[in-house]
């Protein structure tokens, strides 16, 4: 792998954020008496734009907020929603905490992993799906629950899961046609 490709893969190439994003950052800063308080909302904004947080993006955030880079790295590593690695196009985050497991979430997760041929934490070879087992999502009355790119899907069972996967695959194909 060339040094250049490696740098890009590891997210070390300089990041240029959309002007709208940088504008939003400036608005967020007005909500707080100190700039660093805006760090978590700003990181969300940047992740929403890039899909993950390459190191160059963290450096840009540090610059925007006039913070030492280590402050940004430290916060990013603490919170589970910040992704330091690229995920697949569809992130499937299935809750396996108690209420969901009582309603079959561990079986559902196994079913999902078997169908996609991976283990929790992995991404399919075609880059479409990443599966994660996550902690309580706060929707226990509609267990089992899974987030698909952050959207809640509730009262799941294997049949509904199969349907959902088909729909997502169709969506990806549709996107490829137009895209």
């Amino acid at each position, binding site marked *: 792998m060339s040094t250049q490709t490696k740098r890009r893969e590891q997210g070390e190439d300089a990041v240029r954020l959309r002007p709208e994003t940088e504008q939003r950052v400036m608005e967020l800063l007005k*909500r707080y*008496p*100190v700039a*660093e*308080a*805006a*760090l*978590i*909302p700003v*990181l*969300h904004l940047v992740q929403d734009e890039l899909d993950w947080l390459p190191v160059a993006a963290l450096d840009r955030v540090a610059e925007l907020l006039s913070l030492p880079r280590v402050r940004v790295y*430290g*916060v990013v590593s*603490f*919170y*589970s*929603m*910040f992704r330091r690695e690229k995920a697949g196009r569809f992130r499937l985050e299935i809750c*396996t*905490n*108690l*209420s969901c*497991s*009582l*309603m*079959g979430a*561990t*079986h559902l997760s*196994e079913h999902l992993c078997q169908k996609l041929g991976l283990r929790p934490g992995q991404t399919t070879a075609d880059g479409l799906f990443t599966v994660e087992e996550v*902690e*309580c*999502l*706060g*929707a*226990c*009355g*509609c*267990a089992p629950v899974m*987030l698909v790119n*952050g*959207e*809640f899907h509730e009262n799941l069972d294997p049949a509904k899961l199969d349907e959902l996967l088909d729909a997502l695959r169709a969506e990806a194909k549709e996107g490829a046609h137009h895209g």
Partner: protein
Amino acid sequence: MAEEKVLSARFLKKDSHRLQGYVKDGGYEGWKKALSLTPEQVIERVKAASLRGRGGAGFPAGMKWSFVPKTVNKPKYLCVNADEGEPGTFKDRYIMELDPHALIEGAAIACFAIGAAVAYIYVRGEFKKSIARLEQAIAEAREAGFLGMNILGSGVSVEMWVHPGAGAYICGEETALIESNEGHRGMPRIKPPFPAVVGLFGGPTVVNNVETLSYVPHILNRGAEWFNAMGPEKNGGTKLFGVSGHVKRPGLYELPMGTRLSSILYDTCGGIRKDRKLKAVIPGGSSTPVLTADEIDVAMDFDSLAKIGSMLGSGGIIVLDETTCVVRAAARLAHFYAHESCGQCTPCREGVAWVSRVLERIEGGKGREEDLPLLLSICDNIQGHTICPLGDACAMPIRAFVQKFRAEFEAHVREACCTMGPYVTGWGR
């Protein structure tokens, strides 16, 4: 018992999250009333209502407000704790998605009472819809003059912002929440000083739960007497109970404080699914000590549950039927706490992870005879020895599981396997 609706009364209405309908239903009248009183009078009215913190601790809300010093020259803040993440709890999300103005109105009143000009609603990052609805509702309220500068000509100004979390259970602890709101890792602070004295950005700060604040407009409108009449002494009002697990009709129910747990399970929720036998109930979110099937004839309020050694907590009721392996359940919860420990205090960081490993090995058929006393001893060495209650939140329920279901734990060790069925199918389907 009939469902008494206060907070959930508007949940099923069309566009319940929009300002227009909220105002038509009498919304922001409590805020207007508050603005016609002095902050002290507002605090007195909320104090007269026995409104206790719905986040889990049950601390009287009015009392909490009164701890904010009046003579300090630093900016004061309200933080709304909307970091709902206690396993089994799913109530605040409903309020934020379906009646966000109720929370905003309650928060505005709280700001006035404590003299805060700014409130941050700290919403767990996964709740995208809650965040969007709150932001829309705040913009509507600002537009209508209920928030912003010189509200309704009163000279009072209140600004309100949503602050998203980013996936950390610990940030539901009030000082960790403040740290996170300041842009730091969510590590709890040593108390004292308490947030009421030194909180957000060094200013006096009150942290209140979403459900707690949403009662406040109703208390101002309808009075403390009305509120207190709905529950037992010192446990006023209704409560949002979230029921999950093995009942026929899981879901969110608003019932008077003090409703019997047995009635919630068998009347409200239609009984145990497939008419199986009940094995255990976690009454108030994963941190509260488990109850056996013989203990469910209890009133669901802070004091009644404390009397039998458990807690009302957040009111998140998790129901386990006879096919459930309690060792597996305990192991799953310990795994959660080990995952969520911030790592600051050794007894929690090491102890909770240790508890998790011991429970995994018992469930996996590799338990040792000395493991049960070991579990209890680790729990004793965690509880009370940490900065925040996360360690306690693991130690208390695990101790209850081991003590109340000791025979099942012992059988796991003796038989060297899960006695409720093979490892992964031990959940009871």
